[in-house]
């Protein structure tokens, strides 16, 4: 009985210590674990980030110029925006109002992206339902 309790305590304390260590590591790595920064994160930072950066948000309504190369659009998180230029093919899902993650170099506040990924949200529904919800005005997502 006693040995059993000792083993239980040993495993329990071991797991707690491990969880604490993992928690500290993850908190310390916060900025490297995030996959992208929001435009307002960039504004909040004192100096412009060096090297490659990923910026994520929504494509601002009315900002997408598909016609020429480079393709231009603005990423917004409704607090700040970043202008993006991109040479390449856009994923099918990309449209105004759509979530997007662009990565590249930030030059004078302009993101020269070499990769643009569509971010899908957690909503799944048939087209008719999406249309009906938008008509009823209860939901404004998608496009």
């Amino acid at each position, binding site marked *: 009985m006693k040995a*059993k309790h000792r*083993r*239980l305590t040993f*495993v329990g304390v*071991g*797991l707690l210590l*491990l*969880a604490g260590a*993992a928690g500290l590591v*993850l908190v310390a790595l*916060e900025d490297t*674990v*995030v*996959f*992208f*920064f*929001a435009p307002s994160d960039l504004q909040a930072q004192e100096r412009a980030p060096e090297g490659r950066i990923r910026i*994520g948000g929504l494509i601002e309504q009315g900002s997408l110029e598909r016609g020429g190369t480079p393709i231009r659009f603005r990423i917004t998180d409704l607090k700040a925006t970043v202008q993006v230029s991109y040479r390449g093919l*856009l*994923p*099918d*899902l990309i449209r105004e109002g759509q979530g997007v*993650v662009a990565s590249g170099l930030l030059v004078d506040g302009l993101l020269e992206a070499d*990769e*643009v*990924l*569509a*971010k*899908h*949200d*957690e*909503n*799944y*529904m*048939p*087209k*008719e*339902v*999406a*249309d009906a*919800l938008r008509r009823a005005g209860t*939901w404004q997502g*998608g496009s």
Partner: protein
Amino acid sequence: MHALANPTRFMRLAGTILPWTIAAAAVCLAAGLWQALVVSPPDYQQGETVRIMYVHVPSAWLAMFIYMVVAAGSASFLIWKHPLADVAAQAAAPIGAAFTAMALATGAIWGQPTWGTWWVWDARLTSVLVLLFLYLGYIALVNAFDDPERGARAGAVLALAGVINIPIIKFSVDWWNTLHQPASLTRLDAPAIHSSMLVPLLLMAAGLFMYFLAVLIIRMQSAMLVRRSRALGRVACGTAGPQA
């Protein structure tokens, strides 16, 4: 749990349950696949690609659930010396590894048309890849010793340490910015997932869970037969130690 500690009683109960789990898996998977591939509508944004979700999401759920089974079995083996716990943990691990690989593969196939990339190193995808490596490491470690008892003990410690990864997988999409979308089912405000898509998803999840139970029982039965034949071999040779 203690009623099942008796291997003979477990074998008898497992033999009774097995046909039912196989039947339930067959019925749920048939209905689920029919619902997922034929009845359910295309998604308003993803179109037909959404059907990958009906395999991807249940696989990912099971990958995490089976890891908890392996970890619970390992804890029960280390702490309470439950005689079937390490058998269950070792029997479950390769099934969990297979579901993890399935979740990663279907996720990549879905990601290419939807996101525009097969793979990114975001927190969700990376932590699930770590889960696959934990499974493979556990399987390798358990089998790396001549003495099965020592292998089971070393594997159990690894499995318990790896439990830290499970909440990281689950909450990665909430704690950090990830390319992977957050959970659809645990949200309370509509709309996250429409009922015409929820029904096939839950059917597939139930079917794959029953499939897991059936394979787990079969693997445990054969592992116990191996164990028994090894014990009989020791008696026949008149030695107590394991045979090389």
